[in-house]
């Protein structure tokens, strides 16, 4: 049950091992990693800057994690999100969920990233051949979150 915001990269295997450390009842580990693509809305992306709202972002992630644990029978949830300058191919976010069985672990992992994308105060600014621009929110992300029957 951890949330971390950092600029350094992360190692998904090491994080997953740490999360399930000593918990031999875990049978399933589902991990999502979001990475920087080198194209967005048809334009090449040469770099990306991640901004967050210190204090609120951590609280928002913790609330999402608590919501996931309330909805799904899982054992561990970890969210690591990077901020600062990133390049194409770089990992941005890591969500790890451990559980006894894979069904709840898949659902919870997908729930966390779907909610993070629409509720956690992060913003991406990308550099393209046409200059810098703030990334627009994607309707597909709102739809994805809505599918979970938002509790708000």
């Amino acid at each position, binding site marked *: 049950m951890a949330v971390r915001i950092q600029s350094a990269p992360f190692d998904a295997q090491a994080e997953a091992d740490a999360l399930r450390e000593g918990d031999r009842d875990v049978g399933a580990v589902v991990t999502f990693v979001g990475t920087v693509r080198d194209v967005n809305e048809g334009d090449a992306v040469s770099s990306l800057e*991640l901004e967050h*709202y210190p204090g609120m972002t951590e609280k928002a992630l913790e609330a999402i994690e608590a919501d996931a644990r309330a909805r799904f029978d899982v054992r561990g949830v970890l969210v690591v*999100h990077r901020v600062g300058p990133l390049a194409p191919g770089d990992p941005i*976010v890591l969500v790890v969920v451990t559980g006894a069985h894979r069904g709840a672990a898949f659902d919870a992992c997908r729930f966390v990233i779907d909610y993070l*994308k629409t509720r956690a*105060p*992060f913003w991406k600014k990308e550099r393209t051949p046409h200059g810098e621009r*703030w990334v627009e929110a994607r309707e597909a992300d709102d739809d994805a979150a809505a599918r979970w029957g938002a509790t708000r």
Partner: protein
Amino acid sequence: MRGSPTLATSVVRIVFLARLREALGVSDERYAIDGDTSVGALRAALCARGGAWAVELAPGRAVRIAVNHALVRDDARIAPGDEVAFLPPVTGG
């Protein structure tokens, strides 16, 4: 008309994030509120500054507002010492 910093009135801290900060040219400001104000009223008052304020904070614009780090609706109350943040749609993950 910016809030007047008189002793009697109380002050909130307003924070503008990401694209809004750049569009408005302000990252944060101390804003004097007189007594019982709502989030909606504050937004309208800032909007009334005209220019980029009127564009970015117009009612139709997708701006979320948080008071002390919690997302709120327009009818939420604001109290002295609160931190009110204006957030563009988020794009993390």
